[in-house]
């Protein structure tokens, strides 16, 4: 099986996460389809973000975190000892809940990832291409040297997406990317996600049912058990999940009977 053509990019098997004594995520099996948008939904504290951060080894940065189980990234074991997390992170990008551009110029924000990864090509061209892909170029092309914090919240989030795209990742992980934005900026991000999914795999955590229904191909529903550990209840095609969920808990959640 060729590593960039298999049906699944990421496959979590028997995945557990602990923060100190706290068992945050238990026994997760999840397959992320290539060039698909997979939405992770579920009530607060169900481990959606924890699961997302397993996929680019961001939990390594939390001293008390412990990850067990296997995550297959193409043909490699993501958690193997010989795998360098910085290498993984340059291939699996991330966009955060609150727009977090660096306090640098728009240009330098996009160029940052290229520079640290030793990009030797034409920097101007790569920055322009990334901003084009993030549908931000037309709005910022005349002020690339202005500070990123002069942009609106929605523009800042698209800048963060451009920054992630610049290093040409196979996967982009998005942690509630539109939760801090107004409805119009949210719509722009959602359109962008659909557009990007043509050549990038996207995993998105969201609290917003409608958003999950609008942008995702597949949805995984997570819940917390009586020990506050998160687990996957159901995973399937988004259409099927929202029209005829197999599990009654999924139905209860998506129809708003609990949150």
């Amino acid at each position, binding site marked *: 099986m060729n590593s960039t053509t298999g049906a699944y990019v990421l496959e979590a098997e028997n995945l557990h996460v602990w923060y100190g004594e706290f068992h945050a995520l238990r026994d997760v099996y999840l397959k992320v389809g290539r060039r698909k948008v997979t939405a992770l939904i579920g009530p607060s504290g169900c481990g959606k973000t924890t699961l997302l951060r397993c996929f680019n080894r961001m939990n390594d940065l939390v001293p008390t975190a412990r990850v067990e189980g296997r995550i297959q990234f193409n043909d490699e074991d993501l958690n193997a000892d010989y795998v360098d997390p*910085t290498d993984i992170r340059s291939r699996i990008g991330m966009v955060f809940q*609150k727009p977090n551009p660096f306090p640098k110029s728009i240009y330098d924000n996009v160029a940052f990832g290229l520079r640290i990864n030793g990009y030797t090509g034409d920097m101007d061209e790569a920055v322009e291409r990334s901003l084009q892909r993030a549908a931000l170029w037309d709005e910022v092309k005349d002020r690339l040297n202005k500070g990123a*914090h002069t942009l609106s919240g929605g523009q800042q989030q698209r800048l*963060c997406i451009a920054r992630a795209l610049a290093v040409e990742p196979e996967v982009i992980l998005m942690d509630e990317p539109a939760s801090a934005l107004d409805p119009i900026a949210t719509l722009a991000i959602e359109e962008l996600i659909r557009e990007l999914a043509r050549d990038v795999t996207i995993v998105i955590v969201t609290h917003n049912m409608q958003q999950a229904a609008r942008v995702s191909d597949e949805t995984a529903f997570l819940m917390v058990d009586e020990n506050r550990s998160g687990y996957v209840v159901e995973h399937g095609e988004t259409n099927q999940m929202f029209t005829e969920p197999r599990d009654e808990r999924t139905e209860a959640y998506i129809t708003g009977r609990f949150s």
Partner: protein
Amino acid sequence: MVQGHAIFRRRKELRKALGSAVYVVFLAAVLVSVVGLLVLLVDIVTGGIPWLSLKLILNYPSRHPEQAGLWPALIGTLWLMGLTAAFSVPVGVGAAVYLEEYAPKNRLTALIEINISNLAGVPSVVYGLLGAALFVQWLALDRSVLAGALTMSLLILPIVILASRESIRAVPRTYREAAFALGATDWQVVKGVVLPAALPGILTGVILGMSRAIGEAAPMLVISGLLFVTFIPTNPMDKFTVLPLQIFNWVSRPQEDFQGLAAAGIVLLLVVLLSMNAVAVFIRNRYQVRSDE
């Protein structure tokens, strides 16, 4: 309504009166310090102005007040400040980066943190004695400007470290996460994101430290002695004197004229201090502008 009256004793008049009284107390606190500073400044400037001249700056010390200058002390101070900055900034910022970004959070680092804070409160003459033993004697640096600068560096390191740490800690975690998520190594995150964002605060700490160092007489008295220096240092191993010592020397003389010279020396010391700060503020503002405009 009736019930409300029974439960609340609003006493609006009393609360308003208390508010005004507190305002006056705080205003008075500000005035006391500002007026005190102003009186001091006016006294020194009026005493010093008749003696401010090119001769004061360019002449060597002399027994005759009308010919006395502080050229060696001025150059000595510049040497001392330059070397002190060269030692204390990289070491201080490096220590702060290590403690904030690399060190595990355990008892040992907590102990180190407490000790650094305590060191900031140690009397400066103690540093002078330490420097005399460590640098002058043990490392055999003699009473050189290098020994002085190393001593001064020890003195201001806690200030630089504390301010730098505060500033590094204030850099939002989300910046670091964004950089890590792009595949940056620890050092790339520090160099590319943390230090640029923390630079204004680090410079503030450097200003504070250098301002402390430029005015210190006690530790330099121990290191260099109260020399009658008639030459300027040309390399780090030369003997030296500094402005506060020259001022101290003049103040302690009985003749009236030397008091004027001392005041003029203080004015000059303030000028050097303020121009040093101006440079740092200029650098700081340059970096701040780049992120928000």
